[in-house]
């Protein structure tokens, strides 16, 4: 199955370097947390608006356009910091149900955000009813929360 690949990834030089270092893992992890705040803000600003909360007077398309580079950048940053963390303990992740949940939810969240949510947000109030906006906003929050819960439970499985 996939186990040999995970073993090879963990044994690679990046994983090795992080395990050998005292401070690298904590440092990268802290960066991962900062990225999380940025993604959280970028996602919630738009999702709140879709739910009819927060910056209600702004057209949802305008908010979505403003937030998009930060969402993309934030997610890339989190992937960039998450991969080294993964490489340091790939085998543990392999055996973790929470890890697979997180990855599946992450893929779904990214796809959803850059297809359905993006189209609905950019189409705006003129073309989408408040009901469907709320459905999209709620779905987005649910998907990203699942990423989060999956991540949290990796450490408690």
């Amino acid at each position: 199955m996939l186990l040999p690949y995970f073993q090879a990834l963990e044994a690679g030089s990046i994983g090795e370097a992080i395990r050998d270092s005292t401070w690298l893992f904590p440092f990268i992890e802290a960066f991962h947390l900062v990225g999380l705040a940025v993604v959280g803000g970028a996602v919630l600003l738009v999702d709140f608006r879709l739910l009819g909360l927060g910056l209600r007077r702004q057209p949802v398309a305008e908010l979505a356009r403003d937030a998009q580079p930060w969402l993309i950048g934030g997610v890339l940053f989190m992937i960039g910091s998450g991969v080294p963390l993964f490489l340091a303990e790939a085998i543990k992740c392999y055996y973790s149900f929470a890890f697979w949940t997180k990855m599946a939810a992450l893929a779904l969240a990214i796809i959803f955000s850059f297809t359905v949510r993006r189209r609905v947000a950019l189409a705006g109030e003129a073309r989408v009813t408040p009901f469907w906006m709320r459905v999209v906003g709620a779905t987005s929050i649910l998907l990203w929360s699942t990423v989060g819960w999956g991540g949290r439970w990796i450490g408690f499985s």
Partner: protein
Amino acid sequence: MILHNLLQWMADTPWSVGLHESRYAYSIVESVHVWTLCIFVGFAVFLDLRLLGVTLKGVPVSQITERILPWTKVAFVLMVISGVLLFFAIPLRTYHNVFFRLKAVLLIAAALNAWVFHNGGMYRRLAEWDNDAVTPRAAKLAGAFSLALWVAIIFSGRMIAYNWFDCDKPEPAVIDLLAGCVR
């Protein structure tokens, strides 16, 4: 020494011991602390970016302060409560932790920065620059400081967990001094 004894007394209370040895409560408190951080810092980041004229340039600053900041206040209160509980669970080690001390100093600086911004004359004249993409210099500084401080706070908070400079091991004199190790 009085403070040390007070913290020792705190550590011996049933509530502190209960939280310290809890099966679920400690994890929940810790989770709340990090979750609310995500909301609070996430939204604060976007206010700061607006003040710096980097994003949300079409949004009046007052819209953000009136409609987004209330959410951050709720998150902040929960962050403080959970943070206090985390301290209360392990008072002595936390008090003597250099990263905790750094975080406390940075938190005070961030609070001061926010207070100065919200109570300054420039903020009272918000209507004059509310819609400007390029905000007054003082606003930009407030935004920049806020960003830098909260990133540093997240870092120092994360490092509290590690025992690199704990007082229960021999430490260089400067660490002893900074951490207030009682030897």
